């Protein structure tokens, strides 16, 4: 497999994953903002921008005025925002075209169709009344691509790089959400027994599509340690850091088996995975959640960089 194709496949799936997660984040922000007064709603939207790393770009475009429609239009479709969902889908498709021979016809068509559909529905500004439909469409398209990938791609290097891209991105996204929201979790940890801002808690879960799963596992008990533990350490939840790292471990191992050699990336990944597996939520909070997340994000970034070097993504 060409290094350039591995690069294209890796980024194709990173962008798709990021587009999907961005839609979830907007959805959670929107819901949250609906239940708040305008000051708190603004704050909520600001935290969405910070999580996405778009607060500076947004400020450059719109100044200090943070309102819902302005934020989600900026994030979804603004031409001046190279990280908009539309731009990501476009980049994903460009990557898919470039690696056309490494993906199946079904995967290509699903990506191409996503681009055609989203380009159409994001051609005009999104009003609040249309937001839910738009976000639904983004999620549905991403799921369709994943379905095509799972159902049709050979389990070989192409598939492994697709998964590595997906789970490196997902781990990053979940960690960022936690990082921005940790201040919500912190006070309640300090004061055990005080009344919790249940809505905020639910919202963190909602932005990673985990509120149902969490409630089901915990019988409705909103416990800060429980939620943090769920998002970081629960290997059953497909958007937790532990799950993502288990997937990365498995795909990198399969790649090493196919190629007959391991790389430096394997060492970095294994160390990261072992760190996660050996941790308890108590230890994480003792160390400081913010510190933990910061370290995790740095490790995840280093891992992605190393993979790109080890497998000759670029000359």
């Amino acid at each position, binding site marked *: *497999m*060409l*290094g350039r194709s591995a690069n294209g496949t890796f980024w194709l799936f990173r962008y798709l994953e990021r587009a999907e997660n961005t839609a979830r984040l907007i959805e959670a922000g929107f819901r949250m903002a609906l239940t708040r007064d305008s000051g708190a709603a603004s704050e909520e939207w600001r935290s969405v921008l910070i999580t996405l790393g778009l607060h500076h770009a947004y400020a450059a475009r719109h100044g200090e005025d943070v309102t819902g429609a302005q934020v989600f239009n900026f994030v979804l479709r603004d031409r001046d925002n190279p990280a908009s969902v539309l731009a990501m889908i476009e980049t994903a498709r460009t990557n898919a075209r470039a690696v*056309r021979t490494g993906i199946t016809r079904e995967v290509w*068509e699903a990506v191409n169709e996503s681009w055609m559909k989203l380009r159409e529905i994001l051609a005009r500004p999104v009003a609040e009344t249309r937001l839910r439909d738009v976000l639904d469409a983004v999620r549905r398209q991403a799921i369709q691509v994943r379905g095509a990938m799972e159902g049709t791609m050979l389990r070989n290097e192409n598939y492994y790089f697709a998964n590595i891209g997906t789970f490196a991105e997902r781990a990053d996204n979940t960690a960022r959400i936690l990082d921005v929201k940790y201040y919500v979790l912190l006070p309640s940890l300090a004061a055990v027994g005080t009344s919790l801002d249940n809505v905020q808690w639910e919202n963190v879960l909602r932005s990673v599509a985990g509120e149902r799963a969490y409630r089901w596992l915990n019988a409705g008990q909103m416990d800060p340690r429980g939620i943090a533990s769920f998002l970081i350490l629960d290997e059953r939840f497909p958007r937790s850091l532990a799950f993502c790292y288990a997937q990365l471990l498995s795909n990198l191992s399969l790649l090493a088996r196919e*190629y007959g050699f391991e790389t430096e990336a394997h060492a970095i990944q294994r160390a990261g995975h072992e760190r996660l597996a050996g941790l308890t939520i108590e230890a994480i909070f003792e160390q400081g959640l913010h510190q933990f997340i910061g370290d995790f994000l740095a490790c995840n970034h280093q891992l992605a960089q190393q993979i790109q070097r080890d*497998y*000759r993504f670029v000359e």
Partner: protein
Amino acid sequence: MTETAYDEMLAPDGTVRPAYDGYRQWLDAQPPGLLKRKGIEAEAFFRRTGITFNVYGAADAEERLIPFDPVPRIITASQWRKLSRGIEQRVRALNAFLHDLYHRQEIVRAGRLPARLLQGNLAYLPQMAGFTPPGGVYTHIVGIDLVRTGEDDFMVLEDNARTPSGVSYMLENRETMMAMFPELFTRVRVREVSDYPRRLARSLAACAPAAFTGDKPTVAVLTPGIYNSAYFEHAFLADQMGAELVEGSDLKVQGGRVAMRTTQGWQPVDVIYRRVDDDYLDPLSFNADSVLGVAGIMDVYRAGGITIANAPGTGISDDKAIYSFMPEIVEFYTGEKPILPNVPTWRCSEADALAYVLDNLADLVVKEVHGSGGYGMLIGPTSSKKEIAAFSAKLRADPANYIAQPTLSLSTVPIFTRAGLAPRHVDLRPFVLVSPQGIDITPGGLTRVALKKGSLVVNSSQGGGTKDSWVLDD
């Protein structure tokens, strides 16, 4: 022209010609509106699959679809037998001719081809002189453009020995037709085209270079990249062949071989099916600014380290002045009379011909000898007085740069229009594979059709469409 043109489906008295018997019976039994509905389906299908092309110079850089017409173009088994004999003969001659041009130039010595056609001709590559490509094959893939003017009157309009394109449309058009009208294919037996990619892969593998050792040569398709107008085709063929799709930046010369950068290190490539022009192939040998090719590939090539398909320098035989000598060329190398005639051609480099052409511009088609794609030509009958005058000045300034041909009354095949079936002019590009094992012609080819009523220009860049092309089974 339409009134006098030979229609391939209907005889002048309105009866259906034998080739279209089965199809017409089927069509007449279909509910009204079927073709329209299927046409819309086909467009959605093409968009989803991404069969698009980019038009050079189009401002919006949009990806466009080549319009597909759902009425097939049908050729009988006996017509095809004759055509394929003629094509085979011509392609054999082309390869012998190219070998000769880059070696002793017997044809020039024999006085059958003027030496001036080669002198200063940019398509003639001195870098190829004295070198024989692996297996002696120059044109691994050829497209011979045929036009028809009567029941048995097929002529060669153009030889495409450089990098003929369009074969993906031949394949996708058939897939589309089979998906839209499955029952039609149970009624009419049509010869298969779908194994073209397999035959291409086999044919390329059979031309592996001397340096290749092992049991399966590594074949790669070299594309200029995703912004090239034919990128879809490059990806499609690589995918169907199970070959790597590489760009210049994936390759480098290493240890006397051309190697590609894989996730596991640099690995040698044996055969490159290049969809990059000669000029961009090697910045060390040709255009120094090229970033599409591989520095040093020509040295590796000449040392037997790689096969390049088609061989560099084959474009010389696409030259339209050379074309005008094809009947002599065929005879010189095969010792036979050409089975497929040329379209009558005036060489404007010759004084008598030039005088005639200048007097009759309004009736002729004039082409640049190095041109292609329908650019830079004059179609007399559809041009204004002003356009003709302007062209006449260009022609006088550099007569040797032009050839002229009569405005042929190209045959017509019906297309589906809002007003029902209507005849439109067509041509045919069969695709031919050449390997040391022989010449392999896929039955049919790509039919291009001028969608505008009366128009003779079938090029996709100029508003032409395509049709599925059928060769009937015996």
